């Protein structure tokens, strides 16, 4: 049986980590920017409509609660996607090590 190339495993794992976590942080940053823009737009709209008397006090209070709720839900979604990235990383390590082990057996 040939020796397992541990240096190659380390290189592939490092590459996998760099790719996966860079993808995750890019997506999180762009989601965060989109979230801020949308919430800011809705808050301005709600405030202006309330000032013009087009929505009631209760509706305005509800709109503010909804926007705060969105921030908490966005955080939950990002936490979930971070877990997915971690699981992809784990699965990737299994794939790399298995491939290296099989190559050594040949």
């Amino acid at each position, binding site marked *: 049986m040939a020796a*397992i190339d541990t240096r190659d495993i380390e290189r592939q794992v490092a590459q996998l980590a760099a790719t996966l976590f860079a993808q995750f942080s890019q997506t999180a940053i762009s989601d965060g920017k989109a979230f801020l823009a949308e919430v800011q737009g809705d808050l301005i*709209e709600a405030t202006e*409509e309330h000032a013009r008397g087009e929505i009631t006090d209760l509706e305005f209070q509800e709109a503010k*609660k909804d926007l705060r*709720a969105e921030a*908490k839900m966005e955080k939950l979604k990002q936490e979930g996607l971070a877990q*997915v990235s971690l699981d992809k990383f*784990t699965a990737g390590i299994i794939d790399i090590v298995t491939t290296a*082990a099989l190559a050594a057996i040949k």
Partner: protein
Amino acid sequence: MHFNLYSYQKHLPWIAPIILTVLSACSTITAYDQYAYATAVGLKVDTLNLVGLATESYASHAKEVADLTVRLDKAYEYDRGRPLNQKSVQLWDYLLFTKSDDPDSGVFPRFVQTWKTQGHLSAGAVALKKSTFSRDFDRIIGLESGKIKPNSVN
């Protein structure tokens, strides 16, 4: 026990299966589920349709509200029954249930309560609610579609 590179390579053939077994048991979140995804997409459409009716009297749409509430509860219970699915359940929780320590929670029941209290909503409030619900459902849908598809790694 000290491992130099040689002993590391020597022991890897028997250590690797153990490591792989431990790693493969270390999933932190459940895999993608087509039914959960399709249900959330369908409920998004139904909820936005119902919200669009809120400029009319609550009494004339009370049955639709009750029907949709049951379907939302079913989707919640389905997701709650999936192992390692806490984040999706917490998203549904936030949408469907008002917690005493968090007045911002329960986006759907707060909407229904406002509709009941006022009898109907203004057009501006309906537009804002639609935009909020749309994004809230997109978060549930986005998390589901982001999960690892069965039989895929990347």
